[in-house]
């Protein structure tokens, strides 16, 4: 595999072509949006939250293959997870992509597709493409805390 194939691994291209959970929810508890001012990419999320836990998630948006694949995988990995777990997942995801990061095998216990993103290590400017959907999602914590919704 050359570097470009390592970056765009088959699983990433598959998620890009056929993204999971692409679309909207009929009655979301939260709608979130985040864009990348540098490239203009934008991710929109519809969420059904139960307390701090994601019950259902759908996304739409404009983005590159890395951004869309990341969003697609995120929707699969975050259902039934609480925000703390998702934050932990994002830390792990960032470590996979970090050019300086230790590729810590002990951490690779998630047995997920995020490992496919390790090719980004050679292209650090693209890390923000992959993290955009996650940062969009994690904005929900502030909304919940501000509205005191967590007590519901």
């Amino acid at each position, binding site marked *: 595999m050359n*570097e*470009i194939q390592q*970056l*765009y691994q088959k699983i990433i291209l598959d998620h890009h072509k056929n993204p999971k959970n692409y679309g909207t929810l009929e009655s979301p508890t939260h709608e979130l949006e985040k864009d990348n001012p*540098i*490239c203009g*990419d934008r991710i929109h999320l519809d969420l059904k939250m139960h307390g701090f836990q994601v019950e259902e998630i759908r996304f739409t948006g404009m983005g590159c*293959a890395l951004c869309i694949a990341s969003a697609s995988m995120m929707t699969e990995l975050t259902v039934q997870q609480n925000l703390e777990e998702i934050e932990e997942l994002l830390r792990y995801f960032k470590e996979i992509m970090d050019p300086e990061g230790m590729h810590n095998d002990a951490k690779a216990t998630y047995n997920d597709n995020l490992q496919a993103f390790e090719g980004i290590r050679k292209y650090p400017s*693209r890390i923000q*493409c992959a993290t955009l959907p996650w940062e969009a999602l994690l904005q929900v914590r502030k909304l919940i805390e501000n509205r005191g919704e967590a007590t519901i």
Partner: protein
Amino acid sequence: MKGSNKLLLPLANKTVIEHVVDTIALSKVGEIIVVSGHQADLVQKVLQNRSAKIIKNTNFHTGMTSSIQTGVHAVSSNSRGILLFLSDLVFIESSELNDLVDVFDSSLWQDRKVIISPSFQGQSGHPVIFSAYYRSHLLQHQEPEGCWGIIQQNMDHLRQVPMDTDHVLQDIDTETDYQKAVQQFNTRQKKCLLQAKADFPILQRKINGKPLIYLDNAATTQKPKQVLESLISFYEQHNSNVHRGIYKLSEEATSLYEGARHKVAKFIGAPSSQSVVFTRGTTESINLTAFSWLKPRLKKGDRILVTEMEHHSNLVPWQMVARETGAQLHYLPITKQGTLDLESLDALLAPNTSILAVSAVSNVLGTVNPIRRLVELAHRHNIPVLVDGAQAVARQKVDVETLGCDFFAFSAHKMYGPTGIGVLYCKPQYQQEMQPFMGGGGMIEEVLEQESSWAEYPWKLEAGTPPVDEAVGLSAAIDYLQEMGLELIWAHEQDLTDYALQKLTQIPGLQVHGPLGTAERAGVISFQIGTIHPHDVAQVLDDDGIAVRAGHHCAQILMNRLGVHATVRVSFSLYNDYSDIDLLAESLTKALQLFE
């Protein structure tokens, strides 16, 4: 040929006399004295940046001898010899002059009366070198048309030097001679352009093991070694602060810095060096106009007219002054073809419009805007015009007086010069109205405890130590552009653009934005391929060593207008060639296979 001054005839990028003086300056010949008779003032003007001494011969009508004698008078008394160069010997090259000087030097110690004359296939030609011994002969002889008599009387001392070319026989006497010269010089210059890649050291770099193909010239151009060497030479030989020290280095640095201002003024056809302000770049030039000139006269409800294709640098400064004063931005729309919608212009030129700010060439679409026409229409309503020339200056000959614009802004780094320096040209009538928005050293006349008075324009706008090495680099970049010839560069980029459009539109699903067909387009092409995101396209191209730009290109208003949020952009410069475009097309096809 009758009636025209041979010396001032154009050949490729320069006049005959400039070619001749430059050839001699590049050779071992020590000092250059130009004797001009007919139109001496014009000749002087053309040569004003060169190190030749120019002497007027008011008796030129009495024959060539009077000109030779006027020149010989001015030759330094310690010269070893005198080389008589007829000003229409345009084909001779510096290396050929060096061959003659070498033979002269090696003969002189054996024969102090040596005369050197070149020949080609037995026929003697020009130029002739007389040893200093003949100084008095040259000054005293009576023949009106030259020095042939002196040579004949001293045949024993004449050394003929056989040359490899007939350059020593060719002068320009007839219209046919001239046309032949024009053709040869154009070919010679075109060859230079085609070999330009070799002037750019960075283009030797490999990216992912492949040669770098640089197609992001609208963002910044690469720098030729001539510019890089000028920077090194400045720091090795002349570095010091300008306008300050009473010592040699500071005088040299000052004259280099002010010399660059002079060169810029000539380059853009400004009426004087004083109308050129050095800034950090196009962005600062526009901000300077917005804050120093426009803001103090802007009232609530006033309009600032811009266009939908402007770069953020020609939008945001206006938004900032508008927000502070209650003025409003209005947009001249673009047509579906990506050209300015001139039909809407008249209605937009409302009486309370304070300025029209427009780019000469779009950084996204490559559209070449009809600046002269726009200026004419705006001036009819007494609306001044600022032209963002960032994408224009390295591509087409700019003459601010012909354009008629009131402000003209550009950056050095998009025209083969260094980053950190740009230019604002401002029409003389507005110069006194420009108030400094930065204070500091260099911009003052007198500083008192509570207030100060300003230096004259343009120095009052250049607070602090100016970008001296950048000015030197900009000056070298202008030399380089003129050496290559802007007309040829434009033609070359047009060829590349036509070829690229033809190649790109053959790729399935590729959609080009901006003018196709008859409208003028510079070497900038933005496009989409199917639904592939521009970043992904750029990434695949990068893997093949091809540098392009992907994104909104600092033109979000235009992106909205085009209904896209990003494009892939390729932009050409003088060092790109057809093979670059072939490789681009190949790599794009690869991207298509990967993502579709």
